[in-house]
């Protein structure tokens, strides 16, 4: 692959990103950057999203790396990783060469144990992807804990979160299985996306600037009850701020009912 001083621009979607991968492989070129919003100092090549090309990339990944390879690409796409798209091109390139063993290697860090000691997992981009995915999955766990719903619009549940990574697709199963008979919206303010579950169907939609509606008195009352429970349950003789912050980092407090 030759390095070229050109940027790719795409629509930000998963398939759009896969089309950037397709372009890079087909032209045997490595762009200097890939982005979806804003402008660039470099010459820009617009990459159109084409489902057929995207699916060809996915099929190639699955044939060589198995279903887990596809899962990795998907998770990497959801994670906030610097130069994510470039990293994913490197990841897929390595994976196509090495096949199934490759995922096991980067996942456990055991395979290339000699290289691991020598410096880094030979390719800095692979390490970035692994780290990004780890952080994404950690953040998913955090929001399973820390999503707080308010009841609005006559029994619908709404929560606003500000995740670093695109966690919504990973949260869907958990909340749908838990609340099959509710209607809910989890709004990701960082990425302007909403996870919507109504009439037993779930979807993710782009929503610009969603605001929490006014709360009913009943809702306010439950929030007060919860806050009071939260304050009461702490044993003051055991106060331990450091411990609390370790488990529940401050960045989540803004959207936690009990911390208001």
């Amino acid at each position: 692959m030759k390095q070229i001083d050109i940027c790719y621009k795409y629509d930000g979607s998963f398939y759009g990103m896969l089309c950037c991968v397709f372009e890079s492989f087909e032209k045997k070129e490595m762009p200097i950057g890939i982005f979806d919003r804003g402008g660039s100092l470099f010459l820009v090549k617009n990459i159109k999203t084409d489902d057929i090309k995207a699916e060809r990339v996915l099929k190639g990944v699955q044939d060589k790396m198995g279903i887990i390879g596809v899962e990795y690409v998907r998770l990497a796409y959801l994670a906030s990783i610097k130069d994510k798209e470039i990293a994913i091109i490197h990841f897929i390139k390595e994976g196509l060469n090495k096949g199934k063993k490759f995922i096991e290697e980067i996942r456990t860090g055991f395979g290339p144990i000699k290289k691991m000691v020598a410096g880094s997992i030979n390719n800095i981009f692979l390490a970035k992807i692994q780290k990004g995915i780890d952080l994404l999955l950690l953040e998913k766990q955090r929001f399973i804990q820390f999503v707080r719903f308010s009841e609005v619009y006559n029994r619908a549940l709404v929560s606003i979160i500000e995740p670093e990574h695109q966690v919504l697709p990973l949260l869907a199963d958990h909340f749908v299985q838990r609340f099959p008979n509710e209607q809910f919206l989890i709004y990701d303010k960082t990425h302007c996306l909403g996870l919507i579950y109504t009439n037993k169907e779930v979807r993710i939609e782009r929503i610009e600037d969603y605001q929490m509606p006014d709360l009913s008195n009943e809702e306010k009352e439950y929030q007060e009850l919860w806050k009071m429970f939260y304050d009461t349950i702490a044993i003051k003789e055991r106060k331990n701020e450091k411990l609390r912050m370790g488990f529940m980092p401050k960045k989540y407090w803004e959207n936690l009912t009990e911390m208001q």
Partner: protein
Amino acid sequence: MDMFEKLKILADSAKYDVACTSSGVNRDNPSDGIGNAKACGICHSFSADGRCISLLKILMTNACMYNCSYCYNRFSNDIPRATFTPKELAELTINFYRRNYIEGLFLSSGVIKSPNYTTELMIAALKILREDYKFYGYIHAKAIPGTDNDLIQALGHLCDRMSVNIELPSSESLIALAPDKSKNSILAPMGFIKDTLTENKHALVKYKKTPQFVPAGQSTQMIIGASPETDYSIIKLSEGLYNKYKLKRVFYSAYIPVVRGSALLPSIETKPPLLRENRLYQADWLMRVYGFESSEILDEKSPMLNPFIDPKCNWAVNHPEFFPVDINTADYQILLRVPGIGILSARKIVAARKWGKLDFMHLKKLGVVLKRAQYFILCSGKRAEGIKINESKVISSLLSKKALENYYGFKNGVQIGMFD
């Protein structure tokens, strides 16, 4: 009395129970109700003391007719009293659950009218949850000593975990401090739960439809520092409970003085022995997960855990004949005994050495704390380079400077504000 007042009183009275885990059982929602249960357990928040909040931890009532002297809810204590109706409690639980505040309910109670009456109230609340709301989330319920077996059984079919709190780690202390209870009244329901659990497991194998009985097992709690038992007798008791009653967990709760001017209890100014509690958890962990026996951790001659060194390191320091162990050949169980090697790093070692011989550099990458471990291990027959082994060096590598002074003080019997 409004809901706000009630919740405040009944949460305040419940907070001294330390168990708040929601783990141990997986239950799906067949789509006709609310909630499910995850075996890993989920903490939804952390209180100012850093403890996990997973369950709505609450009492049915704090209007207790008993008078256990260590207890905040004893009837002679002048505090406001409240009682939930089963419906109120169920509604509150569901509304907290829907908002993703909690994983479920931890229902305990003071004894009102009689143990049976109290248990009936609890059963009524859980029935509303399970049957009317079709709640599939986690429920932990307290079995009240003195309750009839058939009621305990009914309760057990509605909840995931049950616990009978021992509270005081010896019958002498029970007689002195909990005159309405006895060793027997506590152990009887524990034994009944264990037997019913065993029967239930057999029945489940035969008939899939058998209703489950406390699928997440039973646990108990002991108060530490209210009575004079040694750590040795406490962990021996725990070991017995794990073996005999198949308990899932024993919880230890540092005593927080709630009584002024009692001749039998620590004075009101006493700080809760948090460090001692922590060491007991470590010792408990060694027994449950690392395969230690209580007699390996302590004995009659040195019956207290050294507060200045964790019990695993302490064992290692006192058993030089066991070491060094070779990282490339030692069994998993043996690796676990090395200070600086935890469960995760031991597993990683076993997996990684299949790929080739490990050396000290590799170990670091696998998460082994070499600063501690290096004195106890070999890599392919070789010690870490330039290492000299003598007791004081080893010990000082395991401890901070301050802890070091205190460590020797403790060993020599000087008790410098030991459990402050």
